[in-house]
């Protein structure tokens, strides 16, 4: 896939996410350039995950959740009336904190799940897509002999990579990762971080993480959130070494959060 070409795949314009009357994300405007990894950091409860969930219209599935502002995917507002959220979610994939493979399906069927929903594909195409996704998720070698075994027989780290493979099989434009390594051991964490570097060649990635070191290792750009507001955003090395806002510096040096 083409390297970072300066195109903006996803951006938000004064996005505000609310629960009933309480704003959890306040007027955030953020760009996600294509083929980059953007990390979103901040203390707990500052709206990072909620912001992420707004990007694929998952926020409105929560009790009382609604949104003002706009989210532009390739220039088109996904919150415009008449837009089918299901279609949006097919173009913006998401991986959650805890691995959630579908328990009644095999490894192969799990990965193919997103493909089958998108319409008819020939058996050969499905097989090829599954293999491609599993290779990209660095899981192919481990499961190629047991593609039709139950998905929950895999280890935690493998299950999470399976979820990543499942999310990338339908070739989304953007991949959202919500603290993907939070429930994994260090070995599993490392593998997924390596994966991010690989994946950004094909996809645009936004990753929410609690772990500052992880953000430093993995991302090109970092956005710092605090209490629902976007405090600072910039290239990772710039933000970490020369943060412009005092609050950012306080967080990075561990004075709170």
């Amino acid at each position, binding site marked *: 896939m083409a390297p970072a070409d300066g195109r903006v795949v996803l951006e938000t314009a004064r996005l505000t996410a609310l629960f009933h009357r309480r704003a959890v994300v306040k007027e955030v405007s953020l760009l996600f350039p294509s083929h980059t990894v953007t990390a979103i950091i901040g203390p707990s409860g500052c709206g990072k995950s909620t912001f992420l969930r707004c990007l694929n219209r998952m926020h409105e599935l929560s009790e009382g959740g609604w949104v003002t502002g706009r989210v532009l995917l390739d220039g088109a507002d996904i919150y415009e009336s008449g837009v089918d959220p299901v279609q949006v979610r097919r173009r913006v994939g998401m991986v959650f904190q805890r691995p959630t493979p579908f328990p*009644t399906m095999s490894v192969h069927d799990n990965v193919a799940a997103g493909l089958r929903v998108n319409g008819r594909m020939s058996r050969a195409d499905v097989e090829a897509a599954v293999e491609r996704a599993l290779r990209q998720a660095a899981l192919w070698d481990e499961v190629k002999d047991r593609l039709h075994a139950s998905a929950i027989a895999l280890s935690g780290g493998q299950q999470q990579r399976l979820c990543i493979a499942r999310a990338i099989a339908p070739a989304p434009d953007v991949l959202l990762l919500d603290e993907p390594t939070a429930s994994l051991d260090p070995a599993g964490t490392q593998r997924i971080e390596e994966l991010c570097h690989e994946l950004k060649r094909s996809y645009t990635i936004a990753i929410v993480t609690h772990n500052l070191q992880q953000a430093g290792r993995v991302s090109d750009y970092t956005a710092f959130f605090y209490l629902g507001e976007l405090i600072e955003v910039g290239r990772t090395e710039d933000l970490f070494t020369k943060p412009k806002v005092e609050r950012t510096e306080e967080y990075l040096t561990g004075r709170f959060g």
Partner: protein
Amino acid sequence: MSARRLRRRVASALMTGLVGILSFVAVLALVLILGDLMAKGASSLDWSFFTKNPVPAGETGGGVANAIVGTGIIVGLAALIGLPVGIGTGLYLAEYGAGRLGWLVRFVADVLNGTPSIVIGIFAWTWLVKPMGHFSALAGGVALAVLMVPMVARTTEEMVRLVPHSLREAALALGYPHWRTSLRIVARTALSGIVTGCLVAVARIAGETAPLLFTALGNLNFSTSVTQPMQTLSLQIYVYATGPFDEWHRLAWAAALVLMGLVLVLSLLARWATRQRYGAR
């Protein structure tokens, strides 16, 4: 140890023993009943018992073939009507049941669960037998279906509720439309639990007699017609047990053993299905 404390310890031991004995008595009743069924019924189970129809009153021999087939047909009919409605209601309660209609449906399900089955029977009589002008297996099937629906709805709702929310979210994030997550992902995950609930409900209604008394009525001949009266094992047992002939009594025990066997097989099947379940719990 003081005398008082000793007395308390003795009292405790005695009461422990007492509740143990009470439990034993409860289990004893079961053992006695099943034992008597085996003892009195097993000897009458032969090939002709399963393949022949009842003979005229007073004669010996004969079997319950019509009753076995009839039980199968009526229970099958009830399942055909009751299971879809029950599962659909359960799915509704789990997916959309947070509001007032959900509360109402749950309340009604509880009320109907507690309604005596004979009341359901006379209700089915009014709606199906009276207009049709004659008794029928269809009326019996409908009566049993009415009994089944609340049971199946409640267990389905419970099982679907157990599926973790994260699974739904994962499917929705993949671009599954809502109906598809509900059916293919959530219901599929809860499937073995739902099947268990259905089997338990079927086992329950297989033994029912009261609602069939004035709907299916019973039939001494072999019949597979849904619009005619039909015999079931439970009805057969009732007629034979309350009748004057010893021969009938003997056949009643055998038929009861067969019916109990059927119910046991279904119940055990339900338990076995639970053991196979993974992911949801």
